[in-house]
């Protein structure tokens, strides 16, 4: 029995008597809050262990935990995508990685670790971007769990899954379970694309990324953070030209730290440190193992309940704050009718008649429910302003000075595109 367990493939052959003693207490009989459609016993076990295919996006802090939980819960066909390699700083929480793995693909190492530790589970890694995969790829899964630290990637997968929904094909609706953590805080949520509120619907709930006005950074720094932003936003391109800054590269961070520290000294500002530099440029609050464990467990618990119908699942948002006792809040986040991804309507915006195109762009960049960098604008008939390619940018640049009201009629539509936006945002303009 033991020797056979390390061979992967035919999942059920590696199960030993009593292996699922704990999970089976749940799967053998319904509870008071179990839906009548629950098929207790062999049928549900067969689906979970032999048929269900689940995708995990991200093999980092949350991903490592998610993979371990899914494997122990009885999911046997698990896929994982991650474009990152293992960094030395990951080892204090990403518990599937060892010092010898530094520099290797997170997805590959995590998959291998799980298959070694939990017999009979097949984990198929993909070392690359989620954007490399098409709809056919995502269509093969029953469920998708996201443990990502990037808003952009989440918006992409969310928009992709909402787009995939075909009302004639129930199989095309892929439940998306999303988790995220920051320090002692975290959230887990269940998204049924087109049915419940989606990731885009709740974009305004995100903590506003601390964006410092460029004039503060350039002219009136007050905080150590302002000096660090100065080093990374203004000084790095000036000194290094086109060389891309790698926030995982300690040499780059050290350079930024030294430049920021010098500026802070000049302005008599205290508090620039290496770790603050790292925190500011990566825009992160350090993740910790315990919060990751809680949120990953919550995500996997929802996946297990959805896959087995053994109990009601989360409707639809769980938020945890662990700084003062244990505080959590479970609520139903409501769908936004004007959600640009799942609402199917254009977003109405009120624009001052005197506003220039440049002012409108500023407003779009600032809006928390839109979150776009460098947007390009057009109307159905003409280009208003394009950020790229350079010729088009040059040709449309004079429009920045023009009033929006000269270019777009009242009630007219503007299409916003951007490389960071995984869909075309349509705005309906009314003038005030």
């Amino acid at each position: 029995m033991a020797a056979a367990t390390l061979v992967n493939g035919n999942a059920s052959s590696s199960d030993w008597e009593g292996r699922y003693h704990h999970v089976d207490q749940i799967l053998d009989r319904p509870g008071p809050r179990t839906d009548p459609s629950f098929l207790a016993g062999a049928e549900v076990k067969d689906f979970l262990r032999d048929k269900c295919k689940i995708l995990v996006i991200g093999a980092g802090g949350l991903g490592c935990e998610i993979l371990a939980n899914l494997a122990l819960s009885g999911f046997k066909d698990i896929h994982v995508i991650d474009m990152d390699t293992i960094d030395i700083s990951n080892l204090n929480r990403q518990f599937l990685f060892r010092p010898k793995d530094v520099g290797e693909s997170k997805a590959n190492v995590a998959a291998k670790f799980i298959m070694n530790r939990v017999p009979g589970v097949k984990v198929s890694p993909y070392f690359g971007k989620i954007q490399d995969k098409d709809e056919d790829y995502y269509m093969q899964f029953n469920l998708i769990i996201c443990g990502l630290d990037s808003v952009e990637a989440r918006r992409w997968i969310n928009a992709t899954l909402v787009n995939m929904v075909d009302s004639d094909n129930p199989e095309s609706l892929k439940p998306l379970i999303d988790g995220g953590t920051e320090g002692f805080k975290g959230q887990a949520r269940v998204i049924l694309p087109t049915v419940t509120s989606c990731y885009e619907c709740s974009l305004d709930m995100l903590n506003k990324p601390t964006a410092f006005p460029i004039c503060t950074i350039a002219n009136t720094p007050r905080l150590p953070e302002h000096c660090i932003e100065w080093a990374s936003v203004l000084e790095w391109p000036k000194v290094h030209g086109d060389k891309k800054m790698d926030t995982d590269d300690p040499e780059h961070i050290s350079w930024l730290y030294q430049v920021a520290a010098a500026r802070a000294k000049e302005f008599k500002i205290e508090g620039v440190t290496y770790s603050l530099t790292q925190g500011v440029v990566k825009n992160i609050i350090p993740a910790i193992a315990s919060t990751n464990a809680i949120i990953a467990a919550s995500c996997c618990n929802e996946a297990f309940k959805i896959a087995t119908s053994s109990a009601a699942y989360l409707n639809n948002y769980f938020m945890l704050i662990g700084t003062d006792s244990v505080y959590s809040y479970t609520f139903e986040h409501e769908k936004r009718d004007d959600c640009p991804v799942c609402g199917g309507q254009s977003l109405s915006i009120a624009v001052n008649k005197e506003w220039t195109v440049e002012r409108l762009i500023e407003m779009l960049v600032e809006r928390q429910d839109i979150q776009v960098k460098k947007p390009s604008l057009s109307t159905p008939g003409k280009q208003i302003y394009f950020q790229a390619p350079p010729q088009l940018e040059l040709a449309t640049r004079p429009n920045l000075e023009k009033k929006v009201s000269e270019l777009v009629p009242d009630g007219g539509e503007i299409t916003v595109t951007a490389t960071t936006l995984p869909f075309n945002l349509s705005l309906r303009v009314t003038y005030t």
Partner: protein
Amino acid sequence: MSSQESQDIEQATATIAYCPLLPPPSHLVLIFFSATASPTTKPVDMTVSSGKKPPTLNRSLILRYPPPSIWAASGQAALEACRILVVSSSATSTSILKNLVLPGIGHFSILDSAITSPADAGNNFFLNATYSLGKPRAQEAVPLLRELNESVQGEAVVKDLKLLLDTDQGRDWISSFSLVIAHNLNKDVLGQLSTLLWANSNGPPLISVRSAGFIAEFHIQYHEHCVSQSHSENAPSLRITRPFPALLALARSLDFQNMDPTAHSHIPFVIILVRATDDWRKSHNDSLPHTPAEKKEFKKNILSMRIKPDEENFEEAEAQAWRVWSEPAVPSDVQALFSLSTLPTAPHHNSTFHALLQSLSEFVKDPAGPGTLPINATLPDMKSDTKSYVQLQNLYRAQAEVEKAQFKELFAVKHPEIARTSNPEEVDSFVKNAHHIRVLRGKQWGAVDQDREAIANLLNAQPRETATHLALSALSTLLALETEVTVDALNAEVQRVVGEGVELPEELETAVGEIARAPTADLPNMAAFLGGLVAQEAIKVITEQYVPLNGYCVVDLIESWTGVIN
């Protein structure tokens, strides 16, 4: 890198990592560089993420990189000094341990006489699946946990807790840990353990965890827990309405009307508010705005101080005007601590905190002092130019130094013995965080179940959480009696605890039903969920930072809620 070299680096780090004079976050990397610069060591290749061959580094060094700024160097030092006893090596227990080993506790012992069963091999990530079958569970788990962080010491103790509790030696050993954690322990044995630890006011806190399928709870037992670094996000007072002399002088000295317009648009809101308050007092018989109409007028006054319509600093001042009517001399939470009765069972290590608390109360009453808590030196960011902001920040910093010195003087007079022996860092941290200090007083595990009045109140206030707790307590009782766990048996036991005729909420039905469905299930996801929650509370207790749970935390992973009852 030779082992001698790695040892050199480790020694260099060890010395510096605990040096209080260095800002905690930066030490590791800088030390890396300084260590490599020493003539006896070859340079360490730090470019690990660019695909080059990774350097071989000492494991304990790696794990402290980057240093956990979330609980600072002092918190990390407390973690590294602590010794934790975990009773049982169930899936939940090893999940808890994983999240304590990763951040680097000093030592753990697993006490467990169980032999790995097929069920254990199936639900516990820290066992070698079927290879561990038939071997002692604790012994199998320890190496897999230690592998996560080799700087952590760990041992398996394959003994029965019940037998250890019967001997002096066993009881002393249990009491020698910094913290004891137990999962799904037999109710009678847990009762004995809890009584042992409760009787010793300087003994370790006890975290007891109970889980069954989708339902769980855990309780922290401590007599008293004091926190000075609660990491509260509430802003401390800026003392707008009680300005210290230098602040008032600065606000009065500015000629708002005839200033250079650029300088005018850069006056920090604090100065604007202090000035506006000063002007208001002069024209209102020394009182502050009270009524809604007055508050409105006050805000209007601020906006009328603008010389251009778009001065953001004045808008900021208007938005911050609440400080003028909502900044008490002492926040009510802290005021309440001043009249706290003495707790005879408070642990010895809290005595410095209590002496500091008493001195704080004296400080507020001291006619020579500001009549408030010592001012905080940290200023929030605000619209301003560098010069005005740094100038203002220096004023606050200087005042904070003055008041801290006053406080320390008072402390030395009132508590000479403690002041002489106390850690200066602890005193500084107390003064710095004076606005957010907390004192928690706990109860013994199970005490609430003996108190029918308390239960009745809880059932009324938090029916869902209390019913779920009662159902879990009933489960413990039935399992200890080796009675079959059925819905009827659970309901009967709950009724026995609350008393005949006491009405029970409908939430009891769902909790009881779910527990009867899976009375002994240690589900992987619940184990992982508790693993995170319990470890997090353990870290808060050990580091004495952030505010830990007081009472029971109840968990339902069907509707996905948590709640606290006390």
